């Protein structure tokens, strides 16, 4: 069990990078009127066939060989379903995998979103061969971070140069705070 949803996101996107994705979309959508929090992860990795897909929410299925259980997807699914929300995963070999986890925002069983900035920052720095498109929205106000745009500006300077790393962290922190302004914490 994870203690915050941003850790589920980190864990699940690690699967995308292992599936050799070159672009991963990560979306967080908070909608108070609809009482929902939606997390979307959409990658262009190797995908899964229908047999693998059917088993991926089974805790006793994993592609790993170091252990016999795989709890990443089951944890994520459970985190959404226990709020009365739902969890949809679709995949196509050679095309990629899409996950949508919908949470009932006001549910007492919904874990806090947690530190999405730490998750996105770490993913970007640790997987520099992969691009990330992150969109965070709260009641219609939103911001996006697209590493493809950063690359164009950086002209080959890597993301883990201290000043660049700090810029990315500040970008995420400041823009999240701006979008959240005047709203209750999620």
């Amino acid at each position: 069990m994870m203690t915050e949803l941003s850790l589920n996101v980190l864990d699940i996107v690690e699967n995308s990078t292992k599936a050799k994705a070159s672009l991963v979309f990560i979306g967080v959508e908070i909608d108070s009127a609809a009482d929902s929090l939606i997390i979307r992860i959409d990658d262009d990795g190797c995908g899964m066939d229908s047999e693998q897909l059917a088993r991926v929410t089974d805790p006793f299925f994993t592609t790993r060989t170091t252990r016999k259980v795989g709890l990443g997807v089951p944890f994520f699914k459970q985190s959404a379903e226990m709020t009365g929300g739902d969890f949809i995963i679709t995949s196509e070999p050679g095309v990629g995998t899409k996950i949508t986890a919908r949470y009932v925002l006001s549910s007492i069983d919904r874990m806090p979103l947690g530190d999405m900035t730490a998750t996105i920052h770490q993913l970007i720095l640790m997987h520099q061969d992969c691009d990330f498109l992150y969109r965070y929205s709260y009641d219609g106000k939103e911001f996006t971070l697209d590493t493809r745009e950063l690359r164009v500006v950086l002209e080959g300077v890597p993301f883990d140069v201290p000043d660049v790393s700090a810029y990315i962290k500040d970008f995420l922190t400041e823009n999240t705070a701006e979008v959240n302004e005047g709203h209750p914490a999620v």
Partner: protein
Amino acid sequence: MKSLAELKAIRDKVQGQVGLRSEAEAGTRVVVGMATCGIASGARPVLNALSEAVQEKKLDNVAVVQTGCIGLCQYEPIVEVIEQGKEKVTYIKMTPEKAMEVVNRHLIGGHVVTEYTIQSALK
């Protein structure tokens, strides 16, 4: 909102001055397990603390990287320190505070922090 113009200024500043260091050149690799087991036990702040400390203290010969499940889930968060020509050191049940001690005493000081190693737990 932060602008891309700011990033451009950073690029101009660092371009040229960075000896674009790659993982292969680093003499020491610090490996953090970041599978479900590691993440659920608190590996994210550990990795974050290590990356920041290595940058801050300008340990240019150290690369902080991540791996998947090491197969010792009950001991997560796990940090392995792999120095060229030396035996791998496996630190278990790490926290950001313990990780800072490893940075100061092991990566900088050159002495293994034996009390946090898996060997000391198995004794």
